């Protein structure tokens, strides 16, 4: 009896938060299909709980369990890369059909152009974070700024690129991001 209510509470919890959970895991793992798998795995682990608690506890627990599974996977990836020289599935980009090739090329050109229009420090913070595996603390140190400031630089750079992709002109986008 208690089992069914637990399962029901969980399935409601899952329905309500699944998208948030998957987004959270995508941020961690950088890969949507893996994020969905981990979300599923976290759900299964919660189902196996013998003494389920209140819903508010369950929600926090769901995210904690999912974060731990994700962390395990990231470490496993790192270990297998080091020891065996193997690489986990790289599935960061969605597959584009050939007819979208030109469109993708144009989008990439817009982003490249947008980055060049940004102040050098914003561009640098973004590129270091995205392409050279630096975290925001390290970037702060490299640029002589606080961690929080480094984070602002990066998120501003991303926002600026997005607005330029959405068709805003250089001056319009700058007015929005750097008012």
């Amino acid at each position, binding site marked *: 009896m208690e089992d069914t209510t637990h399962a029901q509470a969980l399935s409601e919890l899952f329905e309500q*938060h699944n998208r948030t959970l998957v987004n959270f895991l995508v941020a961690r793992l950088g890969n949507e299909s893996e994020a969905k798998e981990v979300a599923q795995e976290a759900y299964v682990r919660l189902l196996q709980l013998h003494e389920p608690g209140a819903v508010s506890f369950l929600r926090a627990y769901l995210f904690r369990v999912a974060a731990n599974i994700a962390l395990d996977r990231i470490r496993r990836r790192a270990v297998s890369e080091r020891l065996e*020289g193997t690489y986990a*599935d790289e599935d960061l980009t969605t597959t584009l059909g050939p007819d979208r*090739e030109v469109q993708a090329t144009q989008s*990439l050109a817009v982003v490249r152009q947008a980055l060049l229009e940004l102040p050098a420090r914003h561009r640098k913070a973004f590129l270091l974070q995205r*392409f050279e*595996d630096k975290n925001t603390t390290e970037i702060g140190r490299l640029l002589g700024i606080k961690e929080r400031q480094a984070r602002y630089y990066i998120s501003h750079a*991303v926002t600026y690129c997005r607005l330029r992709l959405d068709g805003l002109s250089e001056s319009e986008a700058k007015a929005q991001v750097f008012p």
Partner: protein
Amino acid sequence: MSEANRINAAADWLLRLQSETASDATIRSWVQWCEADVRNQRAFDQVRETLQIADGLAGEVENGELIGASMEVPRGRFERFMAGWREAWRVSLQYPLQYPLSTMAASVAALAVAALAWVTLTSTGHLPVRNGAVIESDEAVHAAMLPDGSRVELASKSTLAVHYTGAARSLDLRDGEAYFTVTPNKRRPFIVTADGVSVRAVGTAFNVRSAAGRVVVTVTEGTVDIYQQSSRSAPAGKPVRAGAGFQVVWQTGGAAPGQAERAQAGAEPARVSVKPATAVGWREGRLEYLDEPLEAVVADVNRYAIRPVVIADDAARKLRFSGTVMVGLTDEWLSALPRQFPVTLQRQNGVDMIHSVAADSR
């Protein structure tokens, strides 16, 4: 909240969540933010999409700066030229018969101009492709320059998708055969995946052929690691290392069930010493085989033949072929088959069927 602010908040969340040390309190407020407004979730998706597009720059970043950023070319013109050129190439590759002659002539002319211009730029004749691109070759061999300067020659009717990220140069050979010459970069391995089998190289040259549930990797320079792709639950298999002059044959089972070699799917790969020139003969119009299942040979031939060739029964699939098929003479090769093997040929509805004699008499 303005759209820009929302996107900015989403980008900030993404950064905070990436950190391993995100606390329960952070996660709690993330859940609140994410579920407070459906526009917040949309903004988050837009940020992810933007980053995916930006990942295409992976080959162009060094020390936190875009390579060549300081010596900007008159961009608009160059970009337009490249886009137009790529379009012409794509059209002529994919729809040679569906376009009216005038369009064809225009693309051929565009191609000729582009080719001439390009020779002065690369001097190797390899056409540049961007990250995210899917290259499909039609009748002829196509040479392409990948975003990191590595080169690929794609055999007839083959498809290759380019997915470069900051961590790896990933390529997906969906169909057919390709020869890769890899620009060395230890920090960013070059990984070609075909039918669930991955070939990982740092700086080397190798050939990958994927057909009929077999993936054949031939190394002509350097060393590569070959391994079965990690499935959803299982991690990647133990890699097989192969150096120059070696060929590794992997039975993957392939898409078509009930095939002769299906039972061996997932078996240990076979590694043999070969003359690399044999495996890459296709680049000069020769398909060379040593003790190859007829099924795999026919899969190759189908990429060059005018009419599709189909093997009708398992007995014929299991036959082993050694010899050379000339790319322009696949019809001749086919009509000579009954002299070499106990098979008969039958043409039905524009398809050439190969039947084994044994199966006929049954």
